[in-house]
């Protein structure tokens, strides 16, 4: 080195040579993309990779990169082969295969992107998601919103999406198409990028304070896994868990669920699907109502018919019973009639007989009575006959009477010399009392 100094270009040339020697091969470098989005439409895309502190998120190191126009197609091809898992954009973690290069005109070290490993990014996203999921599970909040009751008629919807986006329009037009009276209160929010989390959390707070709402929807159109990775947010999941209202998600993904989906009450794949879910729910409710009304009508009809049959049965048995009763009464009446025809006459005849026998009895009894009277009289006659003085006179007795005609029964009745008349059976003897002696 005869020269005491180097020109800048000489220095830069030397640096380039040293670097090239030091990095004979391309190396795999991992880091977070920054400044890509604003340059992505340029011919060669210049941007940066940086490494952040895991806790403070402070940038620890950064380096510039370039994807030359010739490589752009190839990189896109690789990403496409990974099923469009993501496209390059700011804030995502990527793994590039790069040549470490020094660009002498700028005196700057830069990495020339040669290839990309999509698996790394996907792995990082999946890892991040798993971490959040594990944490939420531990806190027991992943299923909290699922137990919030969703009304059968969710007509008042708080919508969190980017206002006037395709997702917004899909959602609204699907609801309109149904003809149901949906009311949507839209809260405009970013749906990708770092600020998504903050916006959605605020929107959830605001909509939860609205008394008139039945449900909250978080929705956006389809996107790559990396784009949707902002929905693997712990903060959003926690807000959903605390939400008064059921939260439905419709984050346009195909394969994997985001944490937001998992924490939501119900998830659907697209904004249209969420709208359809509501429409179906309302229609099911209406159909259910109709069915219930039909059921009520049916069971009423059934009851009515049953009662009708019962009444018919009653009427029939009433008729037959009545006929039966009338018949038996008719028989009874006939019998009574016969009895009336014959019985009284019969009993009158009996009475007549009785009367006749009374008459006979009377005749007999009165005959007997006269006979017995005759007998009595006769026996009296006999006694009288025996007692008659004639008969006594016949037997030799006589009756002595005083002059007054009184029968002399005692000596006291007479005095000496008094005349006496003595009756015997065939005449009278006159005499005078000669002597009186006590016998």
């Amino acid at each position, binding site marked *: 080195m005869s020269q005491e100094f180097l020109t800048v270009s000489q220095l830069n040339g030397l640096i380039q040579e040293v670097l090239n020697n030091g990095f004979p091969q391309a190396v795999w470098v991992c880091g977070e993309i920054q400044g890509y989005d604003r340059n992505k439409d340029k011919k060669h895309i210049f941007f940066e990779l940086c490494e952040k502190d895991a806790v403070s998120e402070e940038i620890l190191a950064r380096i510039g990169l370039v994807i030359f126009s010739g490589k752009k197609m190839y990189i896109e091809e690789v990403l496409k082969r990974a099923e469009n898992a993501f496209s390059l954009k700011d804030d995502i973690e990527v793994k590039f295969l790069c040549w470490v290069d020094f660009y002498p005109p700028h005196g700057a070290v830069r990495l020339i992107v040669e290839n990309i490993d999509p698996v790394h990014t996907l792995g990082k996203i999946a890892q991040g998601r798993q971490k959040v999921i594990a944490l939420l599970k531990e806190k027991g909040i992943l299923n909290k919103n699922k137990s919030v009751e969703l009304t059968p008629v969710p007509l008042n919807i708080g919508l969190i999406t980017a206002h006037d986006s395709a997702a917004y329009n899909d959602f609204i037009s699907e609801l309109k198409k149904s003809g149901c009276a949906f009311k949507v209160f839209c809260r405009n929010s970013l749906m990708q990028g770092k600020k998504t989390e903050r916006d959605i959390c605020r929107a959830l707070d605001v909509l939860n304070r609205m008394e008139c709402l039945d449900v909250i929807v978080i929705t956006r159109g389809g996107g790559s896994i990396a784009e949707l990775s902002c929905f693997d947010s712990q903060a959003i999941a926690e807000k959903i868990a605390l939400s008064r209202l059921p939260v439905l998600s419709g984050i346009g993904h195909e394969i994997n669920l985001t944490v937001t989906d998992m924490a939501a009450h119900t998830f659907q794949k697209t904004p249209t699907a969420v709208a359809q879910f509501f429409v179906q729910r309302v229609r099911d409710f209406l159909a259910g109502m109709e069915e219930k009304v039909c059921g009520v009508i049916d069971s009423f009809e059934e009851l009515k018919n049953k009662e009708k049959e019962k009444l018919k049965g009653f009427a029939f048995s009433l008729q037959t019973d009545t006929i039966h009763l009338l018949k038996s009464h008719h028989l009874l009446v006939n019998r009574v*009639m016969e009895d009336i025809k014959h019985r009284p006459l019969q009993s*009158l005849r009996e009475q007549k007989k009785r009367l006749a026998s009374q008459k006979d009895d009377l005749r007999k009894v009165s005959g007997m009575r006269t006979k017995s009277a005759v007998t009595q009289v006769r026996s009296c006659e006999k006694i009288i006959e025996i007692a008659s003085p004639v008969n006594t006179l016949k037997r030799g007795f006589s009756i002595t009477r005083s002059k007054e005609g009184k029968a002399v029964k005692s000596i006291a009745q007479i005095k000496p010399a008094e005349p006496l008349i003595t009756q015997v059976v065939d005449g009278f003897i006159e005499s005078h009392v000669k002597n009186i002696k006590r016998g």
Partner: protein
Amino acid sequence: MVDIKYSKAMKKIEELIQKIESEEIDVDDLSDKVKEAVELIKVCKNKIEKAEMEVKKVVDDFEAETLGEKQ
């Protein structure tokens, strides 16, 4: 006499017969009592005959009525 009830008349007849039978009745009263009993028997007979006629009439009227209804 005509206004006497049939059953009472019958009872009286029976009593009279019984009394005559048991010689409670004086011979002086006998003919009066027999006369009375005969009167009562007549009354009863008339009553029976009258009742018989009335019953026959009622039954005949009733039969005519029911026959008329059936026709």
